[in-house]
């Protein structure tokens, strides 16, 4: 009966109810939409980061992260690989790489790059490169002198498919090793910086060039579920002697993305709160109006023996209904907007250089995260009821005599 009474009360003045509901709808919509937009942005950042050779977990020779030099490579990869096979969950994929900084040059230009020696078949399952080649072909296991480079690098070096590129780097004897490769494939990446930085050759070619024999620089693991990272990493740490091997999670490897993650979380909650405060003024004011209009009515009810608590409950029920309806509509509109945009995404190409500079993708696909949606609704609901206590308490405190005297 309380609900029914409240329901009828809020529709006594439909215009007023509609106006305040629109405020709640816009507020909730903006919370959900902004939440999904930022979540999408961060998710893409994380995914890009992980696909751009980071993976979920990496194993290196101890000290490699601080000083990524050739002599900090793992000389006995078989040992690690057998442990890996036993310790990673089924469905996990991993690959071995040689990764060193090198100088690339041709007749016209020279510049610094990161030389990555990969196992073509395994690498394709782990990182972006397997599907990123747009011209020529991806590395084949027997491509002894083949190299795959980024489109931006091709432009910078004024070269093209089939041309030669000479790579120089320090080998295990601390001598300068150099080797000529032929460009067999050109890849495109989300970030231009990636295209400029990485060049790919086969693992064996890199090992031969750098006199590494069987040595590798890193093992990169991608798990079927990102949330198992901590567990698997701890597991590997326990199994590998720390004097020789170090295990890193993607959050350690991508400190910038990690910082963004926590920053954006804070940002979203601040946004929720700010929108709510804006909305809160409206809720309080409207409820207050509804209460003051009905002073006589409350007086009468009290004179008839209604307890103050019941009156308070009545007013709160009205706010409750108002909030629930506004939230429902806001959620529906918000989810529909996100759904409509999730196909094509939100195109930031107009600010491509800015997006690249800030490390975000050119197209953002909003992502609905149950936590964000729940949080938005909880903020509105709980705080909405809390601020309604003020007008409700006002209504409960009228004494019958003064209320009935009121005109």
């Amino acid at each position, binding site marked *: 009966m309380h609900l029914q009474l409240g329901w009828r009360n809020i529709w006594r003045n439909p215009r007023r109810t509609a*106006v305040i509901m629109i405020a709640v709808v816009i507020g909730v919509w903006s919370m959900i939409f902004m939440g999904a937009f930022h979540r999408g942005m961060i998710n893409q950042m994380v995914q890009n980061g992980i696909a751009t050779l980071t993976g979920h977990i990496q194993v290196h020779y101890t000290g490699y992260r601080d000083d990524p030099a050739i002599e900090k490579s793992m000389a006995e990869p078989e040992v690690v690989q057998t442990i890996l096979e036993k310790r990673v969950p089924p469905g996990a994929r991993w690959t071995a790489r040689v990764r060193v900084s090198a100088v690339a040059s041709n007749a016209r230009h020279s510049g610094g790059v990161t030389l990555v020696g990969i196992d073509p078949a395994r690498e394709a399952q782990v990182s972006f490169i397997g599907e990123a080649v747009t011209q020529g072909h991806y590395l084949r296991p027997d491509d002894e002198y083949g190299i795959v480079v980024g489109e931006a690098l091709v432009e910078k070096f004024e070269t093209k498919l089939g041309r030669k590129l000479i790579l120089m780097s320090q080998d295990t004897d601390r001598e300068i090793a150099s080797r000529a490769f032929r460009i067999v494939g050109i890849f495109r990446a989300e970030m231009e910086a990636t295209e400029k930085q990485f060049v790919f050759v086969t693992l064996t070619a890199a090992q031969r060039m750098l006199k590494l024999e069987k040595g590798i620089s890193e093992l990169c693991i991608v798990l079927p579920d990102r949330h198992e990272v901590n567990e698997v990493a701890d597991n590997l740490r326990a199994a590998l002697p720390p004097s020789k091997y170090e295990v890193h999670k993607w959050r350690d490897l991508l400190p910038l993305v990690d910082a963004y993650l926590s920053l954006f979380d804070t940002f979203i909650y601040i946004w929720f709160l700010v929108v709510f405060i804006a909305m809160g*003024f409206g809720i309080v004011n*409207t409820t207050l109006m509804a209460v003051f209009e009905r002073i006589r009515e409350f007086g009468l009810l009290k004179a008839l023996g209604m307890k103050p608590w019941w009156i308070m409950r009545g007013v709160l029920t009205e706010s409750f209904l108002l909030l629930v309806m506004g939230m429902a509509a806001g959620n529906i509109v918000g989810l529909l907007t996100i759904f409509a945009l999730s196909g094509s995404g939100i195109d930031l190409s107009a*600010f491509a250089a800015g997006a690249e500079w800030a490390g975000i993708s050119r197209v953002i696909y909003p992502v609905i995260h149950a936590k964000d949606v729940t949080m938005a609704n909880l903020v509105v609901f709980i705080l909405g009821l809390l601020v309604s206590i003020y007008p409700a308490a006002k209504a409960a405190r009228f004494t019958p005599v003064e209320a009935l005297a009121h005109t």
Partner: protein
Amino acid sequence: MNVDVKMAWRNIWRNPRRSILTMTAIAFACLLLVFMLSFQFGSYDTMINSAVKIHTGHLQVQAEGYQDKRTMRLVVPDPGAIGSILEQTPGIDAYTYRANAFSLVSSEERTYGIVVIGIDPAREANVSTLKKVIRQGSYLSAEDTNQALLGELLAKNLQVGLGDELVMIGQGRDGSVAATVVEVKGTYNSGQDEFDRSSIHIPLKHFQDVYAMRGGVHEVVALGKSLGAIPAIRKAVAGSIENEDPKHVLVVLDWIDLMPGLIEGIKLDLISGLILYCILILVVAFSILNTFLMAVFERTKEFGVMMAIGTTPRRLTKLLLLESIAMTVIGIVVGIIAGCLITWYFQVHGIAISGMSEVVRQFGIPERMYPKLSFLSVTIGPTLVLFITSLTALYPALRVRRLRPVEALASV
């Protein structure tokens, strides 16, 4: 005081609680916008200034195409001539010459491919922060030849300390092999990791000898007195450079051309900020629409009486608009004052944002952010609020014109 204004004023205070809540909502929106915009503008200023001061400068004169290709042979052949043009251009604070060459740099332990930068020690100190960020050893002096400054991170990667030797091998301007041995004289920490990891500075004279530059440089870097004056300076400098040989054209680039990502990043941030603010103002507008509406519907009878005794609908509209605009203006004024006070406090003390340090190291912004009050940052937000609330107030004010005295008097 005009009768209408007086009436509007008294009407506002007939229901002080409601009016105060409405004005607080408006003040809250203004306060927030003033603070946020000042914060954004302040951080842009810091970002631009630190980026400009670390390396690029406000303006650079380069050979056409050098910015994209960074090829050795694209030189400014007679830097002295450009220097004298810059000296005659008003508004320029300082200028310097630089040359860059990608080279293999080896220590005993390590070899890396990095960009070697030739600088004029005395002039450089006036343009960039390099001299101030030296952490170990000392800055280059005019007599130095084969001495080098390098970033702390690079020194760590190369495993060298002060006094150690580095071998540099690269390609000269004419395509010949350029090689030299330099001694580490100092290390610096600019706060921007990328820069500290990938740059090494040697005296320009020595650079020109080693890389066969024949007196040429790659960049003439200038610092203006203020950001706002740069477009005019750029025009003046570009006008004075004589490009006679079409094969060797010199161009003038400003900081926007030199760091295109920075300005677009700022635009992106500003636009996403403005979208957020518009949504916020819309929420506020609907929150206060009810107050304005009620001011009309609660008082139907009163308006009926007023109309019956001869008040024109036009005057009623004016009265209602006066009421809502007075409330809006009071809210805005309070909001601006409070916003300015809060912003000013942080402008003096700075805001430390936790979790920022990684972001900071990427973009080279200081860990404490200082919002900056400016005419724009204080006016944009409140203007938006005024505009949207005035629109909101218009609806009830026009509604009142539809009232008929007889019906209005009959309503309770």
